[in-house]
């Protein structure tokens, strides 16, 4: 009997997808926001293997043939297909929920009102986006003479106008304005949830029983989420050449940073921000603060967009694996966010350590699949340790659910190892330990006055950390 595999989304599409599949009579067990298990059982289709992924992972998983069917937004399908057309999944149906649009957006503070203004830019046009392939496609189609893409993990709207000319970002349909005075110049894609299939499965497997249940089912249109039109005071771009451009992290790191800033006697306004403001104010004189994803900070310091930033040693290491001669240096250990970066396999893999894994790879008939958020670091690890023929599978979180069916080895971070043990996995190697770091650019990039300010700020932070 051929096994059918289906990938379902977690996150923004989960509720609507659960409702749809309930209507279709799948009777799924545990596909809800609590999501205690990534492997879901269907009473109607007990033999079908259903697994839950980050939405962004689904087109990749379907394209490479790990799953026959999947549900995810058209935006992520296009992000994959625009670059790898030969592997493009087949789009079977528009499910008509989870609607949104991708926009090319610029800042109100910049003198860019149309795409023609973008084309007229004399300098390199930088585009920040979570959708780097679509951003590149946009740049080529607009025939930009010189462009650079900043692939970011998030917060692309934080970049224009001073760190990038444009952001390619997603918003609600008909969005008029984003946070921080970012407004759309053009819509590049309207999307909604789609049912997709692996090309080969579609051609060779009988999926009709499953597809039949979805044929005439649709969701009552849900009232569209209110467009974010909150207006912000115009972004103040500090043009003072001696001002320090400081990047602070968003997400769960914020509480630690606030703690350090408090000890240093620095007062912040609107950080963390309830409204998604990415340009908070502070009592730090001559500092221009932007809030971005910690994962993106090493690259943004290397390219000169920021002077100082706070990120994990893990992300610095990943960055250095891609760009060994990067000017990024670690200036201070902020001593929070301790994790260790480990190599993980399934408990039943007959390898207790890296050496034994290498021996297994030597005899293997298929390439080793390495899943990780740290793609550069993992690539270097597999290369340096001669893990034979291997493939890196980029993931966007929940990586432990990939083993064993969708990957053979994980490069993951862990605090206690609890999650790893719970998923019936084991650690075979510890790569290094990581904590949050204050980072900057080495060499003599700055004038003396600015250099002095930077030194002052580093001291402020290190003294605050030393207070414990």
């Amino acid at each position, binding site marked *: 009997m051929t096994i059918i595999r289906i990938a379902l989304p977690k996150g923004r599409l989960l509720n609507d997808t659960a409702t749809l599949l309930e209507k279709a009579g799948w009777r799924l067990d545990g596909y809800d926001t609590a999501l205690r298990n990534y492997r879901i059982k269907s009473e109607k289709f007990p033999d079908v293997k259903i697994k839950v992924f980050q939405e962004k992972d689904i087109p990749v998983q379907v394209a490479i043939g790990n799953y026959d069917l999947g549900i995810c937004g058209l935006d992520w399908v296009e992000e994959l297909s625009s670059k790898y057309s030969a592997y493009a999944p087949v789009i079977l149906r528009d499910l008509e929920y989870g609607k949104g649009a991708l926009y090319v957006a610029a800042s109100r503070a910049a003198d860019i009102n149309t795409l023609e203004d973008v084309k007229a830019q004399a300098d390199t046009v930088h585009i920040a986006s979570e959708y780097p392939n679509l951003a590149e496609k946009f740049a080529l189609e607009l025939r930009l003479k010189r462009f650079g893409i900043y692939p970011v993990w998030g917060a692309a709207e934080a970049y224009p106008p001073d760190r990038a000319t444009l952001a390619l970002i997603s918003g609600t349909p008909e969005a008029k304005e984003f946070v921080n005075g970012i407004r759309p110049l053009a819509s590049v894609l309207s999307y909604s949830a789609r049912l997709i299939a692996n090309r080969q499965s579609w051609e060779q497997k009988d999926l009709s029983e499953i597809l039949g249940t979805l044929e005439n089912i649709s969701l009552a249109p849900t009232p569209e989420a209110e467009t974010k039109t909150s207006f912000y005071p115009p972004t103040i771009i500090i043009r003072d050449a001696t001002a320090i451009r400081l990047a602070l992290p968003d997400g769960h790191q914020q509480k630690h940073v606030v703690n350090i800033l408090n000890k240093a006697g620095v007062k912040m306004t609107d950080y963390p921000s309830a409204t998604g403001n990415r340009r908070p104010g502070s009592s730090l004189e001559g500092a221009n603060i932007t809030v971005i994803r910690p994962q993106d900070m090493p690259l943004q310091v290397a390219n000169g967009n920021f002077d100082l930033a706070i990120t994990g040693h893990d992300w610095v290491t990943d960055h250095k694996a891609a760009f*060994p001669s990067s000017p990024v240096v670690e200036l201070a250990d902020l001593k929070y966010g301790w994790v260790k970066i480990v190599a993980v396999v399934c408990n039943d893999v007959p390898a207790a350590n890296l050496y034994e894994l290498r021996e297994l790879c030597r005899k293997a008939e298929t390439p080793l699949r390495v899943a990780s958020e740290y793609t550069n670091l993992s690539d270097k690890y597999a290369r340096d340790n001669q893990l034979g*023929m291997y493939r890196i599978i980029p993931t966007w979180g929940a990586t432990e659910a990939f083993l064993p069916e969708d990957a053979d080895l994980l490069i993951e971070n862990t605090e206690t190892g609890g999650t790893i043990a719970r998923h019936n996995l084991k650690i075979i190697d510890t790569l290094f330990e990581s904590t949050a770091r204050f980072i900057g650019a080495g060499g003599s990039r700055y004038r003396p006055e600015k250099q002095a300010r930077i030194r002052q700020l580093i001291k402020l932070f290190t003294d605050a950390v030393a207070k414990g």
Partner: protein
Amino acid sequence: MRIQKCKGTRDLSPQQMAQFRLIESVFRDSCLKWGYREVRTPTLEYLHLFTSTGTLTPGTLGKVYSFLDWDGWSGERVVLRPDGTIPVARMYIDNEDKPATARYFYITNIFIFEPTGKENRERWQCGAEMLGAGNPAADVELITVALETLRSLGLKDIKIKLSHAGIIRALLAGFGLSPEEQGKAFARILDGDSAVISQLKEQKPALVSLLAPLLEMKGANAGFLKNQQAVFTRQLPEFAPALENFIRITELLTATGQKYEIDIASGAGFEYYTGLIFQLYARDIKVGGGGRYDALIPLLGGEDVPASGFALYMDPVMNLIRQYASDEAAGVNIILKKTGAVYGQRAFELANRLHAVGLRASLFSGQTPPANGCQVEVAESFKVTGPGLTAPRPAASIEAVLELLGSKQ
């Protein structure tokens, strides 16, 4: 696990390399005779070299092999050269002491992704460019060099198709299409897309009536173009300069005894070009093409320098040539019959002496030598066998071996 060759790549066997080198050497000879000088540009270039000109279509640029270099944190991508001409134009601009007219040629590989993996993603070509000359004689010279190469290689049924980007542009500009839309519209017109044609008909009926004779008919000499000139230029004066240029080129080609076919439709993919476009065929297989690209050097930030060039495609030419420079010329096989440094030393010395007089000589120690050619066995003394020798002949010294071979080779 079996290690496989990368998809879309090919290996060239010794026999194929002999064909490859033959094409190279014939092409080099033709170019050198006409005063072209060989250049070589790097395999890696910045992506923006190819985006900055706007002459490569988004479709082509979407298939380049580009990546972030190890120091590419600025987001600036590098690319495996997808085109032979643009790097040469860049080099021409970079080079400070250049002649008024630079004639360059190159043999290079270009890289373009091809989704099935059945076609080559790495393609070799022989290219020639003339930078700094804008007259019809330059275009005719390039065609002549290309044809000379193909004929010297013994290719049969060689055909040239001529088109003119100036005429195509004048036509499409007449419909009010932007430069970006022109390429797509022309491709659709050539595909016989009736929607685009009827849409154009509404806009400019006079122009559409011109489309048919221009695109469908084939001309064999300048007379064809002169007829067009007589009919159109009064009502459509914007065609006059391009048509005049095209007529002068074709007249000169005819005067040099060259046959050709005027086929405006063969100018598909004209975006690169500004003037003449030519395609070369042998036995109806496309083996090369080229044309005039006067806008390229200014677009790259150089001076207003006219230029034209062509490329011959290595793969189809290799498939078409029967003869190839034989790699199998018989040599001398030196066979080590005994181990030991003293015998090895004598074998190496013999090989060096034979090489010095221009003979091919290979060593065999424990391997079976090929049956053809002369055999020299090395032990306490030498034993020489070979064509022209009725029986194996002993030789006491290297001098004696040379004498035996020398008299018999």
